[in-house]
């Protein structure tokens, strides 16, 4: 299948630290990719380069055949690449519903609808429904209906995470980058939350890249895994193969296990 996103020879360094060193990846349409690697391996730098927050020192990124390397984040969002955040970025003083309405407003504005002279309730592109109905529907789909009128700043962590992802879906992105969608969520809830996210997102045929530290989650939801280490991609394969790769075992999965051992052997205070 044709690649929707193509990263070629990306380099990025911050002073003496190399965050990306010759990153190459072709991401196929309609696929689900898991990005794994220890902290500082370059996963978030990769996401930040795709979304325009960081410009690579070298290399190009093509999306649907178009060079997007130099575009600003909002322009990249407008053409269909959206992201969620490791720490949810919400409008804290507004309710969940109002958060959704802000996002939908931006979509309407970018489509040239709902301006000062517009009459009636304009339909949201891609949904064919008025803004309020789209907001309700997305809240429903992400299991957030009961939090509709609660302020974002008082919502529990997992709910904030879901709202953060629901916000990215208002524009019906073609590619969605999820930065640690289950971090800060209890182990028991992880699968349920990932199930809900994937169902909601895949219903729109969105291509998904997600950063995840839990290898069980990765092997269950990813079709393909990109393993990062020291700014490089050390494995690019289906989960079963990637997670058994000796380098991945040593640098990524092994690291995680080692940390787990350390945590367990640490005397409890």
């Amino acid at each position, binding site marked *: 299948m044709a690649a929707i996103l193509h990263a070629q020879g990306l380099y990025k360094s911050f002073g003496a630290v190399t965050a990306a060193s010759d990153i190459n990846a072709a991401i196929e349409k309609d696929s689900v990719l898991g990005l794994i690697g220890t902290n500082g391996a370059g996963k978030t730098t990769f996401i930040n380069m795709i*979304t325009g927050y960081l410009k690579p020192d070298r290399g190009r990124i093509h999306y649907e055949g178009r060079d997007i390397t130099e575009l*600003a*984040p*909002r*322009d990249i*969002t*407008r053409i269909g690449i*959206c*992201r969620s955040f490791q720490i949810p*970025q*919400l*409008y*804290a*003083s*507004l309710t969940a519903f*109002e958060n959704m*309405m*802000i*996002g*939908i*407003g*931006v*979509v*309407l*504005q*970018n489509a040239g609808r*709902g*301006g*000062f002279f*517009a009459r009636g309730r304009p339909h949201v592109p891609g949904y064919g429904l008025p803004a309020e109905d789209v907001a309700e529907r997305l809240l429903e789909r992400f299991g957030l209906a009961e939090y509709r009128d609660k302020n974002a700043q008082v919502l529990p962590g997992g709910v904030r995470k879901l709202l953060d992802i629901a*916000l990215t879906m*208002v*524009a019906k992105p073609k590619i969605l980058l999820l930065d640690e969608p289950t971090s800060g969520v209890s182990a028991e809830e992880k699968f349920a939350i990932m199930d809900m996210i994937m169902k909601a997102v895949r219903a729109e045929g969105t291509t998904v890249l997600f950063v995840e530290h839990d290898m069980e989650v990765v092997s269950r939801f990813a079709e393909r895994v990109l393993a990062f280490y020291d700014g490089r991609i050390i494995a690019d394969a289906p989960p079963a193969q990637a997670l058994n790769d000796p380098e991945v075992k040593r640098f990524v999965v092994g690291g995680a296990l080692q940390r787990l051992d350390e945590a367990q052997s640490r005397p409890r205070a």
Partner: protein
Amino acid sequence: MSAERTPRTLALTLVAILAAGLFAPQWTLFLLTIALAKGLVVLGLMLLLRCGLVSFGQALYYCIGAYAAGMLGRSTGVSDLLTLMLAGMVAAALVAVVLGFLLARYRSIFFGLLSLAISMILYGLLVKTEALGSSDGFNVLPSTLFGVRPADDWVRYAVLALAAVVTFVAALAVHRYLGTPLGRLAPAIKDNEIRVEYMGASARYAIHVKYVIAAALAGLGGALAATTVGHIDPEMAYWTTSGEFIFITILAGTGSVLAPFLGALIFGIIHTVAFDLSPNTWQMVLGAALLVVIVFLPNGVWSLFRRRGAS
């Protein structure tokens, strides 16, 4: 007070002003007209404040509007009130379009102090410009309405009536703007600008637009004040004038497009009464009033009109 009822309330307020003006004493008409002029400036400040931006220099556009109206009258003999007000509005908006490219890059204290600095530059320039009367300013010609000079007894009412209609249109337009996606972006910019950008909107553009609207309203108010008072001077750009607008903004609250006008009216009344009672210490009364509002009504006087539990 819900947002859907605002247009109706605005219309009722307009009718009330037009009716009450027929019977009220002359000095109250003057007070009310000035309240409308200042309310227009504060309406613009409210737009910026909703984005989390406080302009310490909104007097810049108040002064530009006043001088544009005064200079147009002086140089071309135009005396039509509506034309002068529109001239003040356009002049202020044009300056804001240019300055907005600079100001929209800044946030918080930097935005505030930069706007203050620019208004003080204008003050400095006007004080040194002899052709415009230096620090004395100059008198504005008596205005006419659609080519007619109303009888002396009716001048104040005629000016008030036109001012009320223009203000009504401006407030209605701002109310409608606040309902558009671009207008609704204000609290989002205040809360989380990064997210705004990652949703595909430009916070800088949104702020630039609001900045120009705010300037246009201030220019409109300045021109109205100039023609009502009949005199303009560089004090209109001085920082204390900007301070007065912020004072009214805090007094009023940002809950509705009606709030600025209520705030400006209350300010005018306190000012007049306090000045009457104690000409030397009237500022103390104003200060005490603000203190009371901040302590007991942190969201401004307007919060009294909100249904309990609504917010």
